[in-house]
């Protein structure tokens, strides 16, 4: 059993060391989100104009919005992670985001004009973008790899919880107080969730 305990402790430690940057980032960004009023992090930085030019792209009826947006981004040399929406029938809006900044493209189909605006760098927004970035729907391999790392961080946290529980159980002198902590946490969590 000694070798299992050793393996468990080391897994807990090394996994924690590897995931420290993610833990710090998720912790810090969650605090910003929870206290957005203190940091004014819910107020987006102002959009600065980049260009406003004539642009022609035929958008067939029923065309898939993401593929149209991808084509527009490619024409501007802005390939990468994005969201697209069509707030009006004759307008396509694309948000091309990176951790550091965000560019908004607005294509007015009727007027054949494409406008680009960019947000200035703000540190709180960088951390928030990292927090919200995830999923496997973005077109680049980098984004997919980041999503894999997010998965790894989640699985890592679950392994961390499980290995922490095993570590506590194996330390006989801490069982009583540990049991109180586990019970207290579980009961508080269940009570809160059932009433919230």
């Amino acid at each position, binding site marked *: 059993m000694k070798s299992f305990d050793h393996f468990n402790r080391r897994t807990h430690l090394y996994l924690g*060391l590897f995931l420290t940057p993610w833990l710090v980032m998720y912790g810090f960004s969650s605090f910003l989100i*929870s206290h957005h009023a203190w940091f004014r992090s819910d107020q987006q930085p102002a959009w600065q104009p980049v260009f406003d030019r004539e642009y022609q792209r035929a958008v067939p009826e029923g065309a898939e919005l993401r593929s149209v947006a991808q084509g527009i981004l490619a024409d501007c040399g802005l390939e990468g992670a994005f969201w697209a929406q069509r707030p009006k029938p004759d307008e396509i809006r694309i948000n091309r985001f990176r951790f550091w900044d965000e560019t908004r493209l607005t294509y007015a189909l009727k007027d054949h004009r494409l406008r680009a605006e960019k947000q200035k760098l703000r540190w709180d927004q960088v951390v928030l973008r990292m927090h919200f970035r995830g999923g*496997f729907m973005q077109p680049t391999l980098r984004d997919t790899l980041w999503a894999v*790392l997010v998965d790894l961080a989640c699985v890592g946290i679950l392994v961390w919880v499980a290995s922490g529980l095993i*570590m*506590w159980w194996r330390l006989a002198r801490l069982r009583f107080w540990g049991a109180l902590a586990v019970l207290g946490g579980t009961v508080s969590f269940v009570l809160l969730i059932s009433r919230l």
Partner: protein
Amino acid sequence: MFLGLFLAPWMAMYALSTLVMNHREFVQTLYPTKAPEMERERELDYTHAFPANAAPAEIGAQILNDLGLVGAHRVSGGKEGKPLVIDRQHAWAPRRITWQAGTKKLVIERQHFRSATLLERMHRRRGYDQPYALDDTWAFSVDLAVVAMVFWGLSGLWLWWELRPTRGLGAICAAGGLGLFVLFLILL
């Protein structure tokens, strides 16, 4: 350690809910509809008289009070003849309450339960915006969890440095994690 044991349910919830959100497209294929369906729970007459200048938020709070459903909520509509809609948040069973001032009818709908939606809802529930002690308590527990996360990360570094036999492999893990993180910070 004791803080970790206490906060284990929060950490497990955040990890599981992040997995659900990270694989949203796949998770959605497991259900017949994108969003959980709303089921009509009851419909009743509601004849409470409100002053003409009553704000939608006041009306919403009064309706919830009269229904015995006081708690975290959001109010929309209720102006220019549009129905007033109250989204009553709840971890397990959120409700949508629609009031038509013209017909004095109240419709209460309850969202079908989905474990994936529950996780996502709990993940997003935070902040001190609601005027209820229960919500503040939850927000405080979230604060505690995030401060603990940062503390564990940093205290783990100190712990590793104190354990001499782990320094070599630990340095590779720490440098590997930090290196990858910085690389993606530059690339993305």
